[in-house]
């Protein structure tokens, strides 16, 4: 009864409800029951970043889609940074204000964690935060993972054989229309065949259609382990650089290789050394895992319940992107603070 008094709410519920039903019936779920009229294709996800063209770009070097996203992210940040710092005002506004808030937040956090020493950590912590945040957020924009070039079946089979992958497990989408560039969307893919079937009988693809795998031009930068590993390596490099600068070489090195205080402390040092490697790995895979899982989730939801099923998860991914950026930068700050503390501090 209350709903009848609020026509806008009622209309919204009806629209979203019908969209949900249409998506449910027409999507991947409905396909299992013989509906699936929207023809939502499932993207072929793989761990390594894909090159943006079949041929190497510069001197045998493949530019990958995650590199493109990395550079777009860097471009956005440089433009934002330029806009923010072009005219420094005494009374801040706009982007200057935004960045001041972020910088001041990390400065206060740093002072809370490691006092005055933290001032040197802030530029890197800020860069890590901004880079991961922006790359995560632009990674869920439409067009990421859905627009790309269509990899020829021959090439796909060649790659699969190189990885000892069974051809029956390599799925080829059959795209309506020809051309190098394809879009993954409603009705763009008529059906899916396995590479084995295609190899057996090329005529399985009708005229005017082509089989292949869509290789996206853009892919969230942190779904590539190279990106997350690079950030982790830079972070840990600076953590030890700062520790060396604060403590001096000897004091820092004896944390890891310690002969003076007996065998137990030597073993502790070795464990510390292993845990440093562990930190790099946990940095790398925490960020990669979260963002890659988010990508998989978004693709799966877009496939299962098209149109509307992805919406709550887009919000979730915005949140996850922010949290991961915060966690990475925060941990860098904490590791730097711990590594910079003297031996006998505790």
């Amino acid at each position: 009864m209350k709903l009848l008094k609020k026509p806008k709410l009622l209309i919204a519920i009806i629209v979203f409800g019908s969209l949900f039903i249409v998506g449910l019936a027409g999507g991947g779920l409905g396909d299992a029951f013989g509906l699936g009229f929207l023809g939502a294709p499932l993207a072929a996800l793989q761990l390594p970043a894909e090159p943006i063209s079949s041929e190497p770009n510069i001197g045998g070097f493949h530019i990958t889609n995650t590199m493109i996203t990395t550079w777009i992210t860097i471009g956005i940040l440089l433009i934002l940074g330029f806009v923010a710092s072009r005219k420094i005002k005494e009374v801040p506004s706009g982007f200057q204000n935004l960045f001041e808030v972020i910088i001041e937040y990390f400065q206060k956090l740093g002072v809370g964690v490691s006092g005055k020493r933290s001032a040197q950590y802030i530029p890197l912590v800020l860069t890590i935060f901004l880079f991961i945040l922006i790359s995560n957020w632009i990674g869920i924009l439409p067009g990421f993972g859905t627009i790309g070039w269509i990899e020829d079946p021959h090439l796909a089979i060649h790659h699969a054989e190189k990885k000892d992958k069974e051809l029956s497990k390599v799925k080829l989408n059959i795209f309506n229309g020809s051309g190098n560039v394809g879009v993954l969307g409603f009705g763009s893919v008529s059906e899916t065949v396995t590479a084995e079937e295609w190899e057996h009988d090329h005529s399985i693809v009708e005229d005017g259609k082509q089989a292949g795998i869509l290789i996206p031009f853009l892919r969230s930068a942190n779904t590539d382990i190279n990106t997350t590993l690079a950030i982790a390596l830079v972070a840990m490099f600076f953590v030890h650089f700062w520790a060396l600068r604060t403590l001096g070489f000897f004091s820092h090195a004896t944390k890891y290789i310690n002969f003076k205080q007996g065998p137990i402390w030597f073993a502790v040092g070795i464990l510390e050394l292993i845990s440093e490697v562990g930190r790099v790995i946990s940095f790398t895979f925490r960020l990669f895992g979260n963002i890659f899982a988010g990508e998989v989730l978004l693709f799966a939801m877009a496939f299962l319940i098209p149109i509307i099923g992805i919406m709550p998860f887009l919000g979730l991914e915005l949140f996850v992107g922010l949290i991961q950026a915060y966690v990475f930068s925060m941990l860098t700050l904490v590791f730097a603070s711990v590594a910079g503390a003297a031996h006998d501090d505790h």
Partner: protein
Amino acid sequence: MDALGINLPGLVTQLVSFAILFAVLWMLLYKPISKAMGDRSKKIQDSLEAADKAREEVNSSKEAMEKQIAESRAEGQKMIANAKDIADKFKEEELAKAREEINAEKQRAEADIQRERDAAIDGLRREFASIVVDAAEKIVEKSIDKSQHTDLIDTVVKESAVLRKDK
């Protein structure tokens, strides 16, 4: 490694990209903005200190002013009191002088009166004596000689003197 997608060219590209981003953001964004923030907080602190100082100055000058006002009021009162004293003294002096003059005047007047009176009495006596002599001459013209005549006059004069003293 290959299954995970870790490869050297990719890693190096990402490392270099991130390092460049780090360096440029540091120079372009962090330095000017943190400098502006530092400058601003310094400026705010300075102006707060200046405000405190100004307030203190105002307070101290107010105190000094009040002190001065009190001082000059006291001085004014002292001056008024002095003036009053002088005026009182002057008044008394003048009064005393006037009183003295009045006394002197009075004494002079009394002396004048006395003299006039003495002169009047003398004249009267002289006239009376001649009247008496005339009368006596007329009464005793023939019976009394010159010496008896004089004695009689003296007696009469003496009697009149006694009479005057009784008065």
